[in-house]
């Protein structure tokens, strides 16, 4: 019997790996991928709670569905932005995008 904590620790580790990728890598597409990893970490936590909690059974799953939908939307927009940006500048490094610098 796997305790709930282990799922949560897995989610944490996955979340921070994704987070590190977001912070450390420069390529915008890779950053989007890392965000997906972070979302997955959250999903794991949600499903785990749903499975381990007597209240509100199934709620976690419902939320996961919403997360899926939003993730899809986000990827679609994010990648579209990335491609548009690439067309404009031939560049995909986040630190190269500084049109908005104050």
């Amino acid at each position: 019997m796997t305790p709930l904590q282990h799922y949560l620790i897995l989610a944490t580790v996955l979340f921070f790996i994704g987070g590190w990728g977001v912070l450390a890598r420069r390529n915008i597409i890779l950053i989007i991928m890392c965000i997906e990893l972070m979302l997955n970490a959250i999903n794991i936590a949600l499903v785990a709670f749903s499975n381990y909690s007597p209240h509100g059974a199934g709620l976690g799953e419902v939320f996961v569905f919403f997360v899926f939908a939003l993730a899809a939307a986000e990827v679609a927009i994010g990648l579209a932005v990335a491609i548009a940006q690439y067309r404009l500048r031939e560049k995909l490094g986040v630190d190269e995008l500084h049109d908005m610098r104050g």
Partner: protein
Amino acid sequence: MTEFSPTAFYILAFMVVVFAIGVVSFKNLIHSALSMVLCFIAVAGIYILLHAELIAAAQVLIYVGAISILIIFAIMLTRHRTGDLKLFFSRQSWLALVFVAVATIVFTAVLGSANYRSESLAQNPEDEKIAELVFNSYAFPFEVVSLVLLVAIVGAVLLAKREKQ
């Protein structure tokens, strides 16, 4: 309901972590993307361990099927750079690594010391239950989400469309 052996969880968890690290650290974007696909599949395995078969199926369909393909297309549409690893990591990567590591340890410690109920219900609600939740109690958010998706599609098309010269 079937009871899975704990070992299965550790194997899958190990895979998830390894592939995730792969995503972050491969130089080649295609390699990263492939690693991500594998990671998603492992996550789907975790869902099965948690008796969330519907989610697992959706995970495979949406993440492995749709999102990953989308990302791979995007990678192929853009020319990615080659060079040494330093070029791929931003200046703050070491600082971020330290920070992330510390945060992970603290979180793990906190979670480890927390007192959660440790027995699984060992079963998840019927799929009908989920359907009822989504289409009755959460019908409005559901509609909103569909709207968001619609907007996202339109937005993506607009953004990706080549401007007329």
